[in-house]
């Protein structure tokens, strides 16, 4: 059966959100951290509720509501969220209060909002949606697991539509901590020049991207989700190549049927060597672009790549989107996304044009 991407919305470090979204001039940052361009949330969330919501919950709820607004749907058949870090801001606030007050009774607000399922729960609450609701929290598999859950639900006939999203934020405290792990570049860099020189480390990013998937076609669908697969700690490049070829075989296509590869190159020399190697083997001869120069590196960044792919395939093109990734205006019918997060979680996502 076919799975249709009926709506797509992304809040990201680029101008990807809302009616005036455009990638004609990708936003350039100089630093080691990209922050999302946030919309006016009041258009999506009641002011009273908004006041109590943390940033990541606002982003997730807004992206989800924008999807429903695009198709004028009131209630999805399921709400499935992928987030690796969860609600960092509230976690940090509660930890700080608890430590500072030496475990004397603290206000519960931050604790309540700190749980990983808060984003999905708030979406359900605002929509008054009692349907299936799940949250995946597995690092670079979080968004992919959410997609898989949604696909299965639709294939099982349990739901006619599903809201699926990938959300992660970066906070000052967490960024400071991850910097100690050596994840990021030591010196500020321009995101748009991320791949210019071999260097150690990447740049931090964040974002919230939601999609409405459906089991039946409609007039303005972006694209079809053909499949998603994940694989863990492959030992060799050959193993990665095997996964790619098997994945395509299961979907009864070959590399010749792919018009565009989107890879998760992130500017870290040793991690990017995987993409370089694939570029010399299975992906040689294929048109290939990167996406993390636009959104930065974070565990659910493939949600941004998914948004990008859907917007490249759809006939209703967003202004400047081709140019932003240096692509000509030719039709793109089938896109394969391949990403690895810290060489540990690897994923393949396949999208194609609606027929």
């Amino acid at each position, binding site marked *: 059966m076919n799975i249709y991407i009926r709506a797509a919305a992304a809040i990201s470090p680029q101008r990807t959100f809302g009616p005036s979204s455009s990638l004609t001039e990708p936003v350039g940052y100089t630093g080691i951290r990209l922050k999302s361009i946030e919309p006016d949330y009041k258009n999506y969330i009641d002011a009273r509720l908004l006041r109590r919501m943390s940033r990541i919950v606002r982003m997730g709820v807004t992206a989800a509501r924008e999807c429903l607004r695009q198709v004028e749907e009131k209630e999805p058949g399921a709400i499935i969220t992928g987030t690796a870090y969860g609600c960092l801001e509230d976690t940090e606030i509660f930890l700080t209060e*608890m*430590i500072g007050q030496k475990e004397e009774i603290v206000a519960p607000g931050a*604790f309540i909002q700190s749980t990983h399922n808060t984003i999905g*729960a708030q979406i359900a609450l605002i929509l008054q*949606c009692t349907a299936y609701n799940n949250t995946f929290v597995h690092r670079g598999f979080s968004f992919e697991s959410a997609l898989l859950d949604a696909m299965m639900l639709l294939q099982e006939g349990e739901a006619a539509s599903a809201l699926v999203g990938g959300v992660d934020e970066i906070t000052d405290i967490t960024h400071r901590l991850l910097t100690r792990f050596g994840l990021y570049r030591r010196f500020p860099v321009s995101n748009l020049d991320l791949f210019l020189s071999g260097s150690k480390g990447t740049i931090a990013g964040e974002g919230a991207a939601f999609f409405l998937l459906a089991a039946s076609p409609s007039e303005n669908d972006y694209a079809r989700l053909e*499949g998603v697969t994940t694989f863990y*700690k492959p030992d*060799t490049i050959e193993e990665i190549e095997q996964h790619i070829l098997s994945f395509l075989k299961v979907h009864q296509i070959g590399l010749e049927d792919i018009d565009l590869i989107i890879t998760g190159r992130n500017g870290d020399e040793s991690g990017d060597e995987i993409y370089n190697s694939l570029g010399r083997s299975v992906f040689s001869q294929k048109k290939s672009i990167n996406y993390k120069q636009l959104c930065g590196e974070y565990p659910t960044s493939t949600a941004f790549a998914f948004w990008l792919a859907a917007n490249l395939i759809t006939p209703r093109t967003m202004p400047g989107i081709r140019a932003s990734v240096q692509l000509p205006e030719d039709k793109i019918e089938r896109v394969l996304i391949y990403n690895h997060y810290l060489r540990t979680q690897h994923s393949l996502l396949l999208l194609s044009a609606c027929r």
Partner: protein
Amino acid sequence: MNLSSASSSAPSTAPATAPGAGSGPGASVYVAGAGVICAIGNNIPECLSAFGSGRAGMGEAKVLETAHQQEIPVAEVKMSNEELSGLAGLPSGLSRTALLSMIAAREALNNASIGNIAALRTGFVSANTVGGMDKTENFFAGFLSDPRSGKLGAVVNHECGSITELVADRLNIRHFLTTISTACSSSANAISFGARLIRSGRLDVVVAGGTDSLTKFTLNGFNALMILDRQYCQPFDENRRGLNLGEGAGYVVLVSDRVAASLDPLCKLSGYCNANDAYHQTASSPDGRGSYLAMKGALERSGIRPQDVDYINLHGTGTQNNDMSEGIAVKRLFDPTYPRMSSTKSATGHTLGASGGIEAVFSALSVRHGIIYPNLRFENPMTDLPFVPETVFLKDQLVRHVLSNSFGFGGNCSSLIFSKR
């Protein structure tokens, strides 16, 4: 090019994208094995023995260093991290969440007696809510005053998904991994997700369940919500005062009917349902709509009627709100014929992300051995409900179908049904 130092078995390259043979709505999923560790025992025999003698696991915190030690009873696993490390075969410096997970998952796999799981498409779907917070919260204190302080090793496995990977690596399960976190329904959702992966033909075996260790973070969080009992909890009692936090891990090994054919499974997983209460971030709706939808959906999927249920393992945390909400939902669904029911949280405490998994194990054992668990310290019936929980441990009863409830913050409500094969 060698990419990782993790040793591996030959990978199965069949991707988990497309449904396969042996799948479909009629496909059955069996529980081939189970494993548990909690405040009343480090494995299944110890837990059953504790239930048999009416022993509860609550007491003063001995492992967790908290300012509330003398004031708030908790249900800790009665082992230090050193001792857990010995049982788990994992380094003692790791998060307690991972140590508990490893022990229960290993017991489940041993009991399943599958043989060579590497030859099958095997997945690990684990759930937790705290991740490595037991380590992080101690690191954080120093980090706040000086961002350069503290050992990174303490926080490298902070994420929920990292806990899953630590255990998956040790169990040598690599084909499919994921982690779910939906508050108190987390591991029930892990189990139903695992079942669906099997029914759709994507996997043959799934180790599914969850884990959570006690942390100052959760203890203080629940204390701030004012739903912690200063005494030992009394679920479904008219005068109940709140919950006791617990810790532990519980896993089932789910298998397809093809794999089950050569095994002696405990029971079938015949029903599951996930619904959302959509009422409030932490409180349950007065009419228990999320709970009602979850139970009703699970019954419908299993094809049984309410009167076919022989035992309900209640979510039964002991809070005013949950027990009323869940009670009303049970009344709506089962009136006038009520099955026997009890909350095992009266013995184990509320183990949060692990509760669905731990209680799934108890439910599977209930079907297999005809066990009815006691609802400890029950004194006064709730005046608004026309039923009371069981207070005596029973064995060898006729138990064909068991309903297990897990209702959490964020309105995440899930129910599972285990049935005789």
